[in-house]
């Protein structure tokens, strides 16, 4: 099917099941659909050396650039693999533990293309899309900015 890219940067939550349905609607050509969902964890990453309970995450973004950066990443993926539909949803604002942060979905005639596209999009999104996370420990109003990880920058090298 002809390439269709759809990007949403939004404060509201989203339903991965509904996103799947949109990826598949009237799509009888692509037999493969791969999806990735990122959720708010209840703990800071183990790398930080402490298991800090995060009650709320606050996601800041750069309006305008966030959408165009994600569109650009989706287009790059579509240049590398034969994709049908590509969908990216990224939330901003306050989020609670367990909440969905990001959805990436891709359809293709080939399973590995769909899966690789999701991995590629997530890798570039992590290091190239203008979003910043701040974690709030339970009961704290201070918040700590999440530090970028070298492993995320390293992940780009495989593409």
């Amino acid at each position: 099917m002809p390439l269709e890219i759809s990007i949403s940067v939004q404060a509201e939550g989203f339903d991965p099941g509904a996103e799947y349905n949109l990826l598949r609607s009237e799509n009888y050509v692509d037999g493969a659909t791969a999806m990735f969902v990122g959720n708010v964890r209840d703990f800071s990453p183990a790398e930080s050396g402490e298991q800090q309970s995060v009650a709320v995450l606050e996601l800041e973004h750069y309006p305008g650039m966030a959408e165009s950066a994600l569109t650009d990443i989706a287009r790059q993926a579509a240049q590398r693999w034969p994709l049908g539909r590509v969908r990216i949803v990224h939330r901003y604002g306050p989020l609670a533990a367990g909440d969905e942060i990001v959805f990436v979905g891709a359809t293709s005639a080939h399973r590995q293309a769909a899966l690789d596209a999701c991995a590629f999009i997530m890798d570039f999104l992590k290091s190239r899309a203008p979003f910043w996370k701040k974690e709030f420990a339970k009961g704290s109003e201070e918040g700590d900015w999440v530090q970028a990880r070298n492993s995320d920058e390293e992940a780009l090298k495989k593409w």
Partner: protein
Amino acid sequence: MINVLFFASLREQLGCEGLRAEATGITDIAGLRTSLAAKGSKWQAALASDQLQVALNQKLSSMDAAVKDGDEVAFFPPVTGG
């Protein structure tokens, strides 16, 4: 004028979301950064980070990119979305 924006920890450090900078005498982003750093020790410290990222007209850019009147330049720390 150049429309300058700051995000995340940088915005908090500076206590400033954005400002309009005089384009006269500024040829590239590095020059804009130097002139902003001259606003005081807080600005100097915050803008000195070698981790500092920059976007020119909403595209990731390098510090040596040329800027002109009417451009939008955003400074921010490494991104952590997804």
